[in-house]
C-alpha cells in the first residue's frame, strides 16, 4: 500500500482499520467489471460515510483508473459527498409539490436553527442539512426526511420540535 500523503493523515485517521478493509474488499469484488466505478463508490460511501480524497485515491488505485475520473464522477452525482455528514441527515424536500406548499420556509427555518447552510454539518456533527429534489412523497408535502423517517406536512413552527426529538434520543444514548 502506498504511504498516505502529508495533510491527508487527519482524514485517513477518521476511517478505522476495519472500514479500510471493507472498502478494499468492495474494490476487489468489482475489479475488472465494466462500469464498476459507481457501484464501488456507492458501497465505499456506505462504509466510510463520505468520500474524502484519500478514499477516492484508494478506489482509483484499486480499480486501475485515473483519479481524475473518480473525482469527476464523485462531483457529478449528488449522492456522493466529499464532506463528512452529521449523525443525523436532515433532508428538506424542495420538490415542486413541497416548494408550493412552503418547503422553502422549512429550509430557512432549519438553516437558521442549526446555523448551517445546506451541504454543511453543524459544529457537533449531530445534524447535516441537505436539500433534495422530490422524494416522491408529494401527497404529504411539505416533507422533511431525517435519516429514514419522513416527517409529513411539516409546518415551520414545528421544525424545532422535530429536531429536538433527535437531540433527546442522542442524550438518552449517552445518559
Amino acid at each position: 500500500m502506498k504511504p498516505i500523503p502529508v495533510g491527508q493523515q487527519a482524514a485517513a485517521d477518521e476511517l478505522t482499520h476495519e472500514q479500510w478493509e471493507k472498502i478494499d474488499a468492495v474494490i476487489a469484488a468489482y475489479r475488472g467489471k465494466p462500469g464498476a466505478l459507481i457501484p464501488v463508490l456507492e458501497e465505499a460511501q456506505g462504509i466510510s460515510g463520505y468520500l474524502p480524497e484519500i478514499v477516492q485515491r484508494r478506489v482509483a488505485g484499486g480499480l486501475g483508473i485515473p483519479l481524475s475520473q473518480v473525482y469527476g464522477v464523485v462531483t457529478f452525482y449528488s449522492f456522493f459527498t466529499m464532506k463528512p455528514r452529521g449523525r443525523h441527515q436532515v433532508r428538506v424536500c424542495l420538490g415542486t409539490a413541497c416548494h408550493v406548499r412552503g418547503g422553502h420556509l422549512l429550509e430557512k427555518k432549519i438553516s437558521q436553527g442549526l446555523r448551517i447552510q445546506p451541504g454543511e454539518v453543524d459544529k457537533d456533527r449531530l445534524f447535516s442539512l441537505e436539500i433534495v429534489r422530490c422524494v416522491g412523497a408529494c401527497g404529504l408535502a411539505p416533507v422533511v426526511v431525517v435519516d429514514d423517517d419522513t416527517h409529513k406536512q411539516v409546518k415551520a413552527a414545528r421544525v424545532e420540535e422535530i429536531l429536538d426529538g433527535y437531540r433527546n434520543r442522542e442524550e438518552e444514548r449517552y445518559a
Partner: protein
Amino acid sequence: MLKKIKSFEALQDIARQVAQDHQKYRLRLMVCGSNDCHLTGSNEIIDEFQKQIQQRNLEDQVQVVATGCIGSCSMGPVMTVWPEDIFYMKLQPADVGEVMDSHVEGGHPVERLMYHDPNTGQAIAHSADIPFFARQHAIVLGNKGLIDPESLRDYIWQNGYQALHKCLTALSPEEIIAEVKAAGLRGRGGGGFPSGLKWEFCANTKGDVKYVLCNADEGDPGAFMDRRIMEDDPHAILEGMVIGAKAINASQGYIYCRAEYPLALERLYAALDQARSMGLLGKNIMGTGFDFDIEIYKGAGAFVCGEETALMTSIEGKRGTPRPRPPFPAISGLWGKPSILNNVETWATVPRILFDGGDAYAKIGTESSKGTKVFAVTGNINNIGLVEVPMGTSIGEIIFDIGGGVSGGKQFKAAQLGGPSGGCVPAAYLNLPTDYEAIVKAGAIMGSGGLIVMDEDTCMVDMARYFMDFCQDESCGKCTPCRVGTKRMLQIVENICKGEGRPEDLDLLESLSHTINDASLCGLGQTAPNPVLSTLKYFMDEYRAHIEDKKCPAGVCADLFTSPCQNACPVEMDIPAYIALVRAGRLADAYKVLKRTNPFPGVCGRVCGHPCQSKCRRSQLDEALAIKNLKRFITDYVPPLRPEPIPVVHPEKIAVIGAGPAGMTAALEMKKRGYAVTVYEALFEAGGMLRWGIPEYRLPREILARELQEILDTGVVLKTNVKIGEDISFDDLKSDHDAVYIGIGAQKSSPLGLSNESAAGVIGAVEFLRDYTMGKDVWVGKRVAVVGGGNSAIDAARTALRLGAESVTILYRRERKDMPALEAEVKAAKEEGAVIDFLVAPLEILVSDGSIKGLKLQRMRLGDFDSSGRRRPRAIEGQIVRMEIDMLIPAIGQQAELDFLSPATQIDDNTKDTVAIDAGGNTILVNKDYSTDHAGVWAGGDIVTGPAMVIDAIAAGQKAAVSMDRALREAKGEQPWKETEDKIEIPVEVDEEVETLLQIRIRELSTAERSRNFSEVELGYDEDMALREARRCIRCDVKTEA
C-alpha cells in the same frame, strides 16, 4: 423448490388457486400499505385489525391485506373492503373497533369513515361511486388495491405473465412489434416517441448483443408514478421488458433506478428473484428456450441521467453526460450496442397491450395520443395522488372533478405540467386536453406526467426562479449554452425577485431562452427555458409588477415586502404595527397608524373584503388573524380625532365628482398636499356606496359619518345636491378647476336582459337599497327572488327579509364555491332565512296586470371552463321550472351613468380632450397613474374598475392624488410632496411558545335579535378578546439575523 411455470395452464392453475384462496374469506380488508399511507399510520391499522380478528376468532372469515398504492394519497390511510367495495379513509387505530363491530360483525358499514361529497356532504360508500376513482380509467394501474405487491401469485391471478406466454409461444418478434405499433403506444417518460417504431429500428439493426433498458430514474419533482409502479406492481415492468427483449432478440436488460427509492429497489430485487425462481426470467423462460435476464443499476442522483444517452453513459460508469444523436440508441446504445430504452410506465403498459391486443388499446385516447396516462397530481389541490385517465381528458377535469379542486378554498392560478422543464398554464387553459401535441402547443410538455396545481398564493416569477434554479443545478455542463445560459437566466430572474429587475431583462430572458433551446444537445437544455418562457407568456403582469412596481402580488418574494398582510393590502396598511400596538394597549397610537394610510378604518373594520387575512402567515399554523376585527376594535375604542384645518398653500383648485370612498380619499390626499378641494355630490349626503349601498346592519351610519367628518374637518369643501351635467356642466367644472377627479362609482343595477323587466315589482338591488336608505317608501313583496351571487345580492336579500318579505330566494347560476360574495355574508343570510338556489337562471318574467307574478327558471349544469377558471353554466335542455314570486331583485352587476361627459368631451378625436370610455359604456379608461387621456382629468374607484372592494376605491383615490399633485408641481418645476409623519415606536413582543389557537370569534346578535330591524349584527371585540387575538400575531414582519 418451486415448480417452474412452463405452460399457459400452469399460469391458469395458479390464478385459480389464488381465487379460491380469496374466496375462503367472507371479507377481505385491503389496507393501502404504500409510502404515503404507511407514513400516516397504515401499519398500526393493519396490526390492530389483525389483533382484533384474532381476538374475535375470525381468522377463517376475514383477511387483512396490505396492498399497493391506490392513488388517493391525501385521504390516507385508506382501506377498501372486498367484495363489497366499501371505501374508508383517514382511518385511525381507534376506528378499527367500530369497523369490526359495526361492519365486519354487524354488517353495517361505518358511514362516518366514508368519503363525503364536499358539495352535498353525502357519504359515498362504494369506491366505484367516488368521483376520484369513478372518473379514472385504470390500465397500467389496473392492479392497484387488488394485489399484494410482494406476491407473484397475486400478479398471476390478475392475468399476469399470460401476455408474455403468448409472445414467447404464439407471436413472432414482428407480430409483437406490430401490436405495439397498432396500440399507438408512445413513450411515457416525456418524449412521446412511438415505442413500436423504436423497437422496430432496433430489431432491424444487425448485432448479436442487444440491450433492453428501463428508465426508472424518475427525477421530475412532483412525479411519483414510476415509483408506485415499481413498488406496487413490479412484475408488470419485468413482463414488459421480457416481451421487449423477445421483440428485438436481446438477452440482457438493465433497470436504472434512482437510489432515493429504497422500497422500489427492494421490491424490484424481490420480484427478480421470484421471477427467476418460477422460470419467468433467466435461462429458458417458460420452457420456450428464450433467455433473458435483468440487472438493477442504482443511479447516484443526477437529473440528467433521465435522458437516454446520459443514462447509458452512467451505466458505463462515467459522468452521466448525454451524447449526440444520431447515432440513436436503437443503432448504437449501451456499450455501443443496439438498445431500446423505455421508462417504467411504458414497460408496465406493454403486457396490457399484448394481453388485450393493440387495437383495443388504441380505442382509448385521442387521434395522436392513444391509451391512458398516469398523472401525479400534487401541489395546492384537495385530492393529491396518482390518477390514470384516457389521453385527451382536460386538465380541468383532472384538477376539479378527480382532484377535488384547489385546497383551502383558494383560487386556481396555474398548472405546471411536465416537470421542471415543462411549463405553467393559466386558468384560461383548463379545457386543454392531455394530448402530447396540444400540451406542447400551450407551451408545456407532457413529460412524465407531473401535474402541479398552484393557487393564488403562488408567485409565478418565483416559480420560474425555482425551476431555473433546478435546471441550472442539474445541467451536466457539457453544452455551454445550457451550463452558462441557465445560470445567467437564473441570475436575472433572481434579481427580478429581489426587486432589482430592469425592464430590458424581459427581452434578454426571451432571447437567452431561444439560444439555449437551439444550441443544447439534450432534452434538458432544450426545454430548460420552458418555465421562464411559459410564465413570460401567461403571467407577464407579475413580472411587470416585480420590475416596475417592486411588488410581489402573491406575497412570496420576501425582499419586496415586510409582511404578507401589508403586501396584500391595496393601501399597504401597516398591519403588524397596529396589531403590536393593540397588544401593548396603545390604542391611540394604533389609531394614528390606521389613519396614516386609510381614512376609513372604521368602515373597513366592518365591510372590508380583507385580502390581508388570506395571506396571513399564521394560517399556515392554524388560522389567519382576524385583522379586520382588530382594526374595528381600535376604532371602537378611540375617540374621534379633531383634525385642524389644513392651510391652502397652492393656487390650483381641485374638483372631485362623487363623495364616495374614492372621491373623498382623493379629496383628503389633495387637501393634505395643500390644495383647495371641493367635492361635488349629486345626493344630499356624502358616502357614496358606503352610505347608499351597504345596509346599516353591516355599517351603522354614525361610523361612516364620523370618518367623513374627520375628512371635512381638514377643510375639504363638500357641495351636496349638485349633479354634474345638470346643475353644472362638466366643461364649466373643468374650466373652473386645475384638476378634476371623477369618482362617481357605478350607480345603476344591470338589467337581466329579459322582457317585462319594467313590470311593477321588479327593482334592481342598488336602487332597492338606495331607495330604502334614502327614506323612500319602499314596497317589499311577500315572495322575493334575488338574482346574483355577489355581495349586493346578499345585501338585497337580507334587507328584504328585514323589511317583511316572507320568503327570499337567491337564484345563482353557478355553485356555492363560485359565489363572489363574502363567506360570512352568505352564512349570515342563510341564518336569517334566505334560501339559495344554485345552478338556475331566470328565463322569463311572468306578468299579470303589469305586475310580476312569477319566473320561468332554466336549470343549469356546469360545462367547460371559462377564462377565469370557473365552469361555464350551461342550460340543461328541457329542465325549466316555474316559481311564483311577487318581487324580483336583479343583482347581477352594476352600470355607470356617464351622460354628463358631453358628447364633445367624449368623442373629440385625437386631441388631448377625451375621457375615453370602454366599449360597454360603463367604465372610464385610465392610465396606470389614474390619469385619463383628457388633460387635467383623473378617475378612479368603481367607475374605472367596475364594482370592487371599498379598500380598492380608497387605494385608487390615493394613487390618483399622488399623480395629480405630481403633474401640477411638475408644470411649475417643483419637487413632489413628501409626507412628514410623527414617529410611532412599534414594540416587538412575541410569545415564546406558539400554541394552536383559532381566531377569537366576534360577538354577534342572535338571529332572533336581528329580525325586522337594522341594528348592527356584529358587535366587535371587547378589550380582552382583542388582546387575545392580537397575541396570535406571530410577527412575521420582524426579520431576525440568522
